[in-house]
């Protein structure tokens, strides 16, 4: 069952991020309305796909009359990073029932994943299911509600506000949480450089390449320069 204390901790941990998630959800709803999607179709996207960046990419490609396979491929490449999330958070979920694993996997976002993984690293005794579920489902609920609100507002919100900047800000706000010293900073730096240089590669594959190179740089630098033995085995 859900442990209330851990659930509250999870919800509290993601609460400040709503400042960025709300505007992004609004944009997502507004864009869906402006692309001529019905409300039902917009909801099918936000509930089914439930990954903001890929949803916006799909809408743009639909507007451009792109080929169905191109749209599917592009969206899936953007979401490929979720496999890395799945791999890194898997050890903490291994004792849960399969249906809980499925629920937690479905509702995982960039933010709830990053916040929860860092929390579990620092609090090995946490009730993983309650914390992670509560962090994810809070974001899920807010996302669905503001997507609908955005859809109904349509073009009332001026695009010049640049609300799309709100999402990178939520990532910045959690970037240094639980950072593992110098190797962590090296990871950030290397990943930043590769992601910018690789951003011209077709269809967002640069993101995944940058993440993998960054993870490699962090691990290798830790092994070469900072290794104090086996102290951070995470099990």
């Amino acid at each position, binding site marked *: 069952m859900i442990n209330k204390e851990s659930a509250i901790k999870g919800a509290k941990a993601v609460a400040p991020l709503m400042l960025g998630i709300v505007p992004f959800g609004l944009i997502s709803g507004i864009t869906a309305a402006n692309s001529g999607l019905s409300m039902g179709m917009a909801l099918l996207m936000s509930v089914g796909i439930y990954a903001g960046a890929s949803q916006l990419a799909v809408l743009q490609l639909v507007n451009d009359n792109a080929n169905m396979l191109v749209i599917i491929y592009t969206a899936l490449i953007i979401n490929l990073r979720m496999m890395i999330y799945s791999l890194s958070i898997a*050890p903490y979920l291994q004792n849960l029932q399969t249906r809980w694993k499925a629920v937690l996997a479905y509702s995982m976002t960039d933010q709830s994943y990053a916040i929860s993984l860092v929390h579990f690293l620092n609090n090995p005794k946490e009730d993983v299911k309650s914390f992670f579920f509560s962090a994810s489902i809070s974001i899920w609920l807010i996302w669905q509600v503001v997507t609908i609100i955005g859809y109904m507002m349509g073009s009332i919100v001026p695009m010049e506000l640049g609300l799309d900047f709100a999402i990178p800000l939520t990532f910045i706000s959690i970037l240094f949480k639980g950072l593992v010293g110098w190797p962590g900073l090296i990871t950030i730096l290397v990943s930043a450089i590769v992601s*910018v240089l690789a951003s011209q590669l077709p269809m967002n594959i640069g993101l995944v390449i940058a993440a993998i190179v960054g993870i490699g740089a962090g691990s290798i630098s830790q092994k070469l320069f900072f290794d104090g033995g086996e102290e951070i085995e995470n099990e």
Partner: protein
Amino acid sequence: MNKLELIITILLISLGTFAFRFSFIYLYGKFNLPKWLRRSMHFVPPAVLSALIFPAIIIKENLIWISPQNPRLIAGIIAMLIAWRTKSSILTIIVGLGVFWLMIFL
């Protein structure tokens, strides 16, 4: 693209995205991950977050734009400094948006 095609597209993307999210969470324990790979997992959040952040604040219309005129870059750097020094998410987002709006509206 007609309505049916759009529904199929959305459903296929939904399915694929769920498969990515579920993949290793489901498979874990059914095989052994090498130790070096398990240890490298500590670096996943900073690596992916960084790769999401920097193109969003540096790239504009497919070009690298490193300049004090770039509102996303300046607001992003200031937000990073705040995030690093204070570790406060709410302060980071408020100041980041504040600086960004000041730069585009002034």
